[in-house]
């Protein structure tokens, strides 16, 4: 029961914050993709940077649970292309569409239904797609720490990259906060 309440509480807080930055607004998301709205991409990049610092602290204290997903050159890349087309077309991600449904956006209800159909379709073909697309080019659960040989150096590099990307978005994106 505790786990359900923790999930519910975390979800409510998460849904509230992403609505307040406009990530559940498909119009704002489309403007972000069209390089006219900088807040959503900057918000995501900085959230990753701050979370990485926080998680580093948690791990130093020996708290929490992590699980790194493997990198499959083919499957992760191809999946990202399919995902990107759907994201650019609808303006919703699997998380934001739940918050948008809660807000009362009717198009998000259809994105959620389409999502259920897409998830069910993938689950039907999991046994064929994972061995053929995912496993052959899987590099295992590699991390920046593996590449750089030190986890604190990896956190510094990640935070630097996210900070740099945030700055770049501020330079290149317009300031259309519709």
């Amino acid at each position, binding site marked *: 029961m505790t786990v359900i309440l923790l999930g519910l509480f*975390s979800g409510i807080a998460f*849904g509230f914050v992403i609505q307040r930055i406009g990530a559940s607004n498909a119009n704002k998301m489309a403007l972000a993709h069209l390089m006219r709205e900088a807040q959503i991409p900057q918000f995501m990049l900085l959230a990753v940077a701050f979370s990485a610092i926080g998680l580093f602290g948690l791990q130093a204290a020996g708290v929490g649970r992590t699980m790194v997903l493997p990198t499959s050159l083919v499957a992760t890349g191809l999946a990202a292309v399919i995902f*990107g087309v759907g994201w*650019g077309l609808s303006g919703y991600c699997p*998380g934001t569409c*739940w918050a948008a449904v809660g807000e009362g956006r009717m198009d998000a209800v259809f994105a959620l239904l389409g999502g259920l159909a897409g998830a069910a379709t993938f689950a039907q073909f999991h046994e064929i797609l994972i061995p053929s697309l995912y496993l052959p080019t899987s590099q295992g659960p590699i991390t920046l720490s593996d590449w750089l040989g030190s986890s604190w150096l990896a956190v510094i590099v990640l935070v630097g990259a996210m900070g740099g990307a945030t700055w770049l978005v501020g330079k290149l994106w317009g300031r259309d906060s519709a």
Partner: protein
Amino acid sequence: MKPDDNSPYWSVMPAAMALAGIIVFIFATFGPPASSSGFITLLKGVLAHLAPGYIAARQHYLMMPGPGSWLMAFVLGMAIGGFIAGRTFAVPVRDVPELWEKRFGKSRVKRFLAAFVGGFLILFGARLAGGCTLGLFISGSTQLAISGLYFGVVIFAVAMLTARLVYGKTGKEKS
């Protein structure tokens, strides 16, 4: 970093700190946050009644918890959070986004169909990769995973290209 002074939306910095606080809380109390998995747990719950034999033979349902789980509670919580935030917000919601309406007209059917197709693609892709914007890009990158960074770069690039193709010239006009 700040929307217009009269914008009801939050500024980037406090919003990003708030989200990071929530994400770190989730890592401490549960593990890596994820939302596309919630679709599988929901389907698993529905199919457990309709076709128990089917899900018992499918790896993708076997590897995910059912609806009595953190994942299910989290996505339902997101809808509740969206509801509370929406009720206390100055900007009314629309069923057809402004930019979409400018490009494709007022047709709700057209927009809902595009949202359905887009929803299908994001979940199909997320399940193939093992996560979505949150479950792979944000969770993964926070854990310094190459998979999360790789997925994040490609989804942003492809979504930006797709939006350009979808909105064409309309996408460049000032609103």
